[in-house]
């Protein structure tokens, strides 16, 4: 045992101490990432008994119950819908399988508040169809529906990827041993993909827990919305910090669940399964299966895009794609580009440190930098508002603070991309460059950077996408007069002028769609990317 370990150790070689500059940079990044949570604790703790009494108020218990109920309902529904779609597209003779494969994932390009907007416009109070359908989609039902339609793609993508990875021989062996197709599904296929379904479900849970846009549109008082209102309306903002901590606790519970699920996951089989599994014949269920796919894709993709196009086509004055959209579009584009590259730049030292010098303390820095995963946007924004108002008045309501918030919030997405990219570069390559006369920096620039660039760029793209769609942090931290496409949608909807939101919303979808499409078509790294998007 010891001999084996030492041999492995020898082959890997010793791990040189990281350079001083790199260490300092990584420590600074990790400290910045930890700042919001730490300051939230400080602020909440300084509030005293009066502030903490907010926890004991009956309304708080109500809000908490509502929040948990929403998360549970959305997660369950997203799991069933996403799992069913994955099985239908990967394992059955569903007609137009390839079309459904892409269409089922595309709703990722529709920001959840845009989905909510479309639902409200058609079936909400006073919506176009609500009287003829005799139903009103709002409140809990509306929020649950909109969030389910926005989060099922995570479950779908991860489960479909796991199904593609699963060795078809296992399912064939079970058939050979006399199991019926449904028994194979129950006894072999489901256990194989259960870790993937679990991971997708927890992404859906995290998303619905941190969502702010949908619940605001649907006027559902869950934690994120209550925190926002407390902050906006009350003179004493400490209760908001306390509630923010409560939200962090809920998020941490969900994250622990995910860590457990991942810990149980069986080692991934090598992706050798190039042979497709003989599809299960749907028989008389074919029509029902197609109807199910059509309903999901219709509600999640066709409805919102259709409503937006309809509004623009109707083009009353001031609704069309006029000059008013240019400033928010440029604002969105600008901050998203800067945030994307800044996040990757910040992730780089941490990723380099943990890939090159894996030691307990570098792993601790990495974990700190992933800390923002536990922080919904509302909480990050709140903590930074408090912090800036008290210590850094000069940056309060500046673009710098807003960008800082984006980078901290989306650092995990950039970090997972950078880590994978850097770990994928054989360290022998850099040694070869050294032996050929290049210094450490030159070797890094000439060999490692070009090879890691695609992965780093992918990380930047995901942060770009997340920043484009981001709403609560932008609302709380933006400088006065600064607009993005997301805030444009928000301000139109907050005065119930839904159709005025159409140009900005459609632009958001148009920018996101190609990125999501490429991700789905390329298929690789579906998990990493869906995971990263999960924080969106």
């Amino acid at each position, binding site marked *: 045992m010891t001999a084996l370990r030492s041999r492995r*150790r*020898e082959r890997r070689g010793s791990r040189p101490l990281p350079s001083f500059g790199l260490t300092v940079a990584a420590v600074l990044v990790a400290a910045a990432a930890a700042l919001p949570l730490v300051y939230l604790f400080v602020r909440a703790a300084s509030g005293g008994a009066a502030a903490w009494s907010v926890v004991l108020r009956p309304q708080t218990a109500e809000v908490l119950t509502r929040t948990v109920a929403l998360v549970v309902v959305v997660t369950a529904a997203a799991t069933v819908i996403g799992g069913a779609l994955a099985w239908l597209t990967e394992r059955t003779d569903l007609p137009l399988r390839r079309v459904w494969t892409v269409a089922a994932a595309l709703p990722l390009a529709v920001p959840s508040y845009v989905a909510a907007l479309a639902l409200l416009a058609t079936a909400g109070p006073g919506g176009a169809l609500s009287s003829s359908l005799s139903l009103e989609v709002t409140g809990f039902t509306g929020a649950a529906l909109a969030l389910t339609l926005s989060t099922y793609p995570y479950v779908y993508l991860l489960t479909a990827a796991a199904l593609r990875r699963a060795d078809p021989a296992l399912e064939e062996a079970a058939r050979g041993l006399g199991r019926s197709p449904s028994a194979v599904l129950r006894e072999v296929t489901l256990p194989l993909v259960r870790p993937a379904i679990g991971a997708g479900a927890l992404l859906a849970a995290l998303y619905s827990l941190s969502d702010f846009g949908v619940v605001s549109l649907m006027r559902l008082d869950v934690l994120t919305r209550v925190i926002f209102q407390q902050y906006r309306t009350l003179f004493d903002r400490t209760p908001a910090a306390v509630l923010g901590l409560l939200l962090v606790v809920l998020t941490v519970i969900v994250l622990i669940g995910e860590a457990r699920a991942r810990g149980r996951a069986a080692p991934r089989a090598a992706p050798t399964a190039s042979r497709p599994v003989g599809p299960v014949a749907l028989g008389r269920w074919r029509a029902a299966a197609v109807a199910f796919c059509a309903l999901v894709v219709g509600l999640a993709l066709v409805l919102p895009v259709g409503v937006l196009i309809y509004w623009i086509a109707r083009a009353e004055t001031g609704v069309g794609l006029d000059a008013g959209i240019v400033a928010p579009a440029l604002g969105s584009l600008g901050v998203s580009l800067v945030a994307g590259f800044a996040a990757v730049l910040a992730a780089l030292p941490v990723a380099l440190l943990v890939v090159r010098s894996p030691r307990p303390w570098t792993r601790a820095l990495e974990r700190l930098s992933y800390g923002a995963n536990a922080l919904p946007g509302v909480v990050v924004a709140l903590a930074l508002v408090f912090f800036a108002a008290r210590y850094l008045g000069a940056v309060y309501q500046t673009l710098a603070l807003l960008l800082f918030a984006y980078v901290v919030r989306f650092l995990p997405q950039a970090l997972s991309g950078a880590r994978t990219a850097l770990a994928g570069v054989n360290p022998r390559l850099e*040694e070869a460059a*050294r*032996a*050929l006369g290049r210094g*450490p920096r030159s070797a890094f620039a000439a060999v490692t950077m070009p090879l890691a660039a695609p992965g780093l760029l992918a990380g930047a793209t995901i942060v770009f996408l997340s920043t484009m769609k981001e709403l609560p942090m932008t609302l709380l931290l933006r400088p006065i007069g600064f607009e993005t496409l997301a805030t444009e949608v928000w301000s139109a909807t907050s005065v119930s002028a839904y159709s005025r939101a159409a140009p900005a919303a459609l632009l958001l979808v148009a920018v996101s769609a190609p990125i999501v499409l490429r991700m789905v078509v390329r298929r690789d790294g579906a998990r990493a990317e869906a995971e990263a998007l999960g924080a969106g």
Partner: protein
Amino acid sequence: MSASDPAIPQAMAVETRGLVKAFGAVPAVCEVDLAVPRGELLTVLGPSGCGKTTLLRLIAGFERPDRGEVLVGDLLVAGDGVWIAPERRRIGMVFQDYALFPHLSVEGNVAFGLPRGERGRGRGRTGRARTALELVGLQHKAACLPHQLSGGERQRAALARALAPGPELVLLDEPFSSLDASLRADLRREVELILRDAEATAVLVTHDQEEALSLGDRVAVMREGRIVQLGPPEEVYARPADRWTAGFLGEVNLLSGMCRRGGAVETWLGVFDSPGAGAGRVHLAVRPEQLDLRTDRAVNAEVVEREFRGHDVLYRLRHEVGGKLLVQLPSLELYEVGARVHVRPAAAAVASVVD
């Protein structure tokens, strides 16, 4: 070919003195003294985990020694408070997995180590990169990317890349281990010719006995971080320093015997020449090919097993006195299993005392 006149001090391309490196509590390299004269091809042979790769990495500068010194040419590059970074040691390295830069063409790879002025771009790129490619016969693949090359071509590209800057020394880490067996023998010869052509000094690390013996001017046998024997291949094979080395380099019969005067050892199988044998009881390492079988003498053994290998045959015998013996003979004349034979030392057999 490395035999040198002791009167003329030879210029050393690389030298290590008392080199020590441990990973945690696990020693990898212990007190290694090695001197490789210019133009020599030294092979370092040892089982996996014996520290031979660490030795290479210490010389190249990818590991820092705990103690001891490394000299390249006359220059101290590590030890005694001195540390020269790998990029300034003028050492070429061929990695086990070749480590070709996947984003650069073959020519880009080969030109990578050249001074900026000679690196150039596009068609105008001639000179040393081209010369190196021609040396390994890859000029027609200059524009290819590494993944478009076969295993053997990749290896030659890696060699050209290491040779192009004209290093003081080339280190090769198990360069043939990722190739098919059929390709290995051809490439071994080819690599040797290329290294000789370039008049390069080379240290090649391997766990393959045949490779080490056939390639090296000298062979260093390494075990548990120490060099247990260093010498020309014929010598290392014929006169292993100890039992372990004898067994590691090939099949061997261990016979106990008594020393006689005049460098001979008498065993139960007969008398073996063994120059340098001392006195008293010793063990001899006798190679299977150092024994001979006859049928025209008194029977003293029986063939138990026969392993036909084409060009030769390995017999397992049971000797009436001493038990099991291995005998290797050309496949000209075959003995059947069960044949009763006379076994004795071959005419020119010189066995070595191992303890």
